[in-house]
């Protein structure tokens, strides 16, 4: 046996990567249901996606507060009872507010689905938005925010988004304690009525699905005044900042700098998007990337450094993010630019590119494992309004992209002068 020689591998280029198709239904009220029935465990994940994100709010913080308060009291149940109803069955009901959408999700053993759908129905139709609950929400959100504002990473993320999109754009907006204080109950109630009670909704469900799931969904949600989403959002133009470089002191005692380097980038509909996903992986998208190898594994400036394309729908940004020792922050930034220029000036080596392709394909193969992962990919495709062939096309791009194409993309997009640069200590 020769330990110096790698055992033969099946090249990931030969993997047959397919995303299992979803089943599609519409409820009586037109709400679309995307379903994946798979998996050995008798569990289920149900997501109700409402077009009720920050894009639609009349005042900062209203969308998030409304989403939060969905679980805090209805005409039939107190906040405690809602929680008790889910938790008695070992189920989890979460809610989350994003930019375009806001979600109510349920994770449960499949056998309890019928017991829990009435609670979801109640939350969507009969929430009372109690003032007392809003006061507690405000107080606790403000407290959490004051702790987060002490963290340089948190502050850096808010600032860089403000530079990229402008602080009036939902992607660049962030709340201060006074904004949370000012959230109005009337606006919450109006928002609830318009965007939840009579809102646009799509349902994504995956796991071991009960045979009568559609009947159940229709019984509890099909009669509500919901409608099928148009899957489009209002067009709000970003207004990026004019100044490119920033140094901010947040904590005089800080021992690390939170570094963010970013540039605006088009969304998934742009023909270069899938190709840049490969270039990004080479650059800073995984543990073996150029940035990680140089700045962590070679220099030891940081515990970790990554680059990524933000997961936005309307338009997005290419971001490099790391926390580095205060005394080596500037050196780390210089290395980031150095790596950009290197990608512009030399084509990626054949072996490195093969490694990245295999890594990406292997990682997608692993990520297709299990019903929750599959539905999450479909949800992304549907909410971004890209073609159903998007997944297959991404695979084709990864398998076929050449070093010359990558170099061309680096020349076009990885120009240091196009990037915002921020250090928060």
């Amino acid at each position: 046996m020769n330990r110096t020689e790698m055992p033969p591998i099946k090249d990931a280029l030969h993997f047959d990567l397919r995303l299992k198709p979803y089943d599609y239904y519409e409820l009586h009220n037109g709400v679309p249901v995307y379903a994946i029935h798979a998996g050995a465990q008798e569990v289920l994940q149900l997501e109700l996606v409402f077009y009720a994100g920050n894009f639609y709010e009349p005042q900062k913080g209203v969308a998030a507060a409304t989403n939060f308060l969905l679980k805090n009291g209805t005409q039939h149940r107190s906040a405690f009872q809602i929680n008790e109803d889910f938790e008695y069955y070992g189920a989890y009901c979460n809610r989350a507010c994003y930019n375009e959408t806001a979600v109510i999700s349920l994770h449960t053993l499949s056998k309890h689905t019928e017991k829990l759908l009435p609670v979801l129905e109640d939350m969507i139709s009969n929430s009372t938005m109690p003032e007392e609950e809003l006061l507690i929400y405000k107080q606790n959100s403000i407290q959490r925010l004051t702790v987060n504002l002490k963290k340089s990473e948190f502050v850096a993320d808010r600032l860089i988004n403000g530079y990229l999109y402008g602080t009036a754009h939902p992607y660049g907006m962030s709340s201060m304690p006074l904004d949370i204080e000012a959230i109005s109950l009337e606006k919450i109630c109006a928002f609830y009525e318009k965007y939840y009670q009579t809102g646009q909704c799509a349902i994504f469900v995956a796991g071991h699905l009960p045979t009568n799931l559609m009947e159940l969904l229709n019984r509890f949600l099909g009669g509500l005044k919901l409608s099928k989403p148009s899957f489009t959002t209002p067009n709000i133009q970003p207004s990026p900042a004019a100044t490119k470089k920033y140094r901010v002191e947040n904590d005089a005692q800080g021992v690390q700098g939170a570094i963010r380097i970013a540039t605006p980038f088009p969304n998934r509909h742009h023909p270069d998007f899938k190709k840049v996903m490969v270039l990004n992986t080479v650059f800073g998208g995984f543990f073996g990337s150029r940035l990680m190898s140089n700045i962590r594994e070679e220099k030891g400036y940081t515990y970790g450094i990554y680059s990524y394309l933000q997961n936005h729908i309307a338009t997005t940004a290419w971001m490099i993010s790391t926390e580095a020792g205060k005394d080596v922050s500037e050196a780390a930034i210089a290395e980031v630019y150095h790596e950009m220029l290197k990608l512009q000036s030399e084509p990626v080596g054949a072996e490195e590119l093969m490694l990245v392709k295999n890594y990406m394909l292997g990682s997608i193969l692993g990520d297709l494992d299990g019903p929750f992962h599959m539905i999450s990919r479909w949800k992304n495709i549907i909410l971004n309004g890209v073609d159903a062939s998007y997944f297959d096309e991404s695979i084709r791009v990864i398998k076929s992209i050449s070093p010359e194409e990558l170099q061309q993309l680096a020349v076009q997009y990885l120009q240091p002068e196009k990037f915002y640069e921020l250090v928060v200590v």
Partner: protein
Amino acid sequence: MHPDNSTPMAVVDVIYDVGARDEDPEKTGFAHLFEHLMFGGSQHIPVYDEPLQMAGGENNAFTTNDLTNYYCQLPAENLETAFWLESDRMLSLKFSKKSLEVQRKVVCEEFKEHYINKPYGDVWHIIREMAYTTHPYRWMTIGKNLKHIEEATLDDVKAFFRKHYNPSNAILVVAGNVTTEQVRRLSEKWFESIEPGNKVQHLIPDEPAQPAPKRKTVYADVPLDAFYKVWHIYPRRDQRYYVTDLITEILSGGGSSRLFQRLVKEQKLFSQIECYHFGSHDPGLLVIEGKLVKGVSPEEAEKAVMEEISFLKENGITEVELEKVKNKTESAMAFEDMSLMNRASSLAMYELLGDANLINTELLKYQSVTRNDILLISNEIFREENSSTLYYLSKQKS
């Protein structure tokens, strides 16, 4: 091994029976630093990550106070690559000076990122030192201080490797789209020739029963006052461990739990409150921690927490509450088992505890817990002399 042919993937998980509790008190943080070095190349393979990525795989590792776990996931067709890599680094590391130098820096940055440059980042250093006088749970996995990491030498690295990184102190789990025959053949081919080494006996002093309560107040540059109280609990293999786990669920597992409902929602003393336990192999700690609403004094907050505890000690819990936390446990386990990686590492952990079959019997142990057990064990744990209390207060107002 755990075959599952519904997935295209395979997982290889190796646990070494060494954690921060095995460290010299003067060289803490070493087990974790060493974990970093395991990626710095082995005797026949210059870098660990690259061949794995070439085979379409991903990997990571973590160190706890009890163990060090390395895991990778890759397309099942390429399983042998993982055997090749894992066996070579068990056979011998490269012991590169450069790797040690760089990883010392990386770990120092990790230390700063998580424990210095973060509000409340040093809380667990303080509490562990308070609660433990003797047992090495006295320090955190990352180490007592940066100095211990900076001073690690290549000789330390070599000695540590020889002692702990060998078949006698390792557990290998292979899961996914694989067959018994294939795993047996690959295990024999790649691992059988490695010197077994000696099984290391953990020479770990027991923590003596705590005779009196401990208290401490610290002022720090944080925006909110925080309250922490911990009690000594039971080892992982003790049946009372399961009772304790359910007690923490009763107190703070979700929006209908007691502490959240009473102290956050009704009395509005805390903006957040949590109850959990360490889950460690040797006797760990049960923790109640929370951030105080501005204007609430820590004494007032503590009094309210202790009223809830007294209520539990006197009245126990209802049948419905017990049913709820058992349902929750069943559901949590089902969700956890969805991931192949989780199943593989659970198997390895249970085997380290002495029996891989625990994976099949855990739920029964939770289901056998009675209301009376909860009452009894609450009274055993929640004794003031068994506790340590920390007020971690904002400097800004003092």
